[in-house]
């Protein structure tokens, strides 16, 4: 039971990694728990603004399940 976490842009710069696979029991079962897991693990992320996407859809809360892909996305800057 694990999830994949992806980090982009300024967030990836703060974490030093772009992707990691983490056991669900380690992060908890919800987006809220995942956020606090990441903020504890990577303190610098707390200073940055970001949105979370689960399986490529933006979301602010909800539960996580085995195989989910969660992305931490800094402000968009396209165009």
């Amino acid at each position, binding site marked *: 039971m694990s999830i994949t976490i992806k980090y982009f*842009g300024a967030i990836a710069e703060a974490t030093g990694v772009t992707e990691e696979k983490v056991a669900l029991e380690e992060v908890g079962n919800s987006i809220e728990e995942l956020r606090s897991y990441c903020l504890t693990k990577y303190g610098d992320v707390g200073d940055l603004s970001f949105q979370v996407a689960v399986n490529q859809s933006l979301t602010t809360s909800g539960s996580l399940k085995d195989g989910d892909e969660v992305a931490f996305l800094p*402000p968009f800057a396209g165009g």
Partner: protein
Amino acid sequence: MKNKEPKKVFMAGPIPPEKIAKSIANHQSKTNIGAHSIFLGQVRADEIDGKKVNAIEYSAYEEMAEKAFHEIRESAFSQFDMTCCHIYHSLGTVKAGELCLFVFTSSAHRKVAIEACNYLVEEIKAKVPVFGKELFEDESHQWKVNQ
């Protein structure tokens, strides 16, 4: 043009100006078109704290971004009576003065083409997970945020 497979939007490096001319040429056989509208995003050499931006290095959450581009395009087709719609966005390094976004809409009449083009550009800026690293001349950088 509706319900086609998602088109590839991203291209490596700057969008060559020749691509714009070629896109226009490609539509000359479609004589039901009466108006094209084009938006071109160009990298600006902003000066921040006395340092000049040399280039922007674009990256993206590509799978989500391609999906978002597709949804935006479908939504534009459902609202505007367009004949065609094309979107291209750069990934990787684009120097100041070079093009990073090309949105091209065509319709029978000008108002639809112009409004659809505006809609697409605003949606792209707000909803597509693309990230821009502004590279300064002294090799330092900062992360761009859309206004």
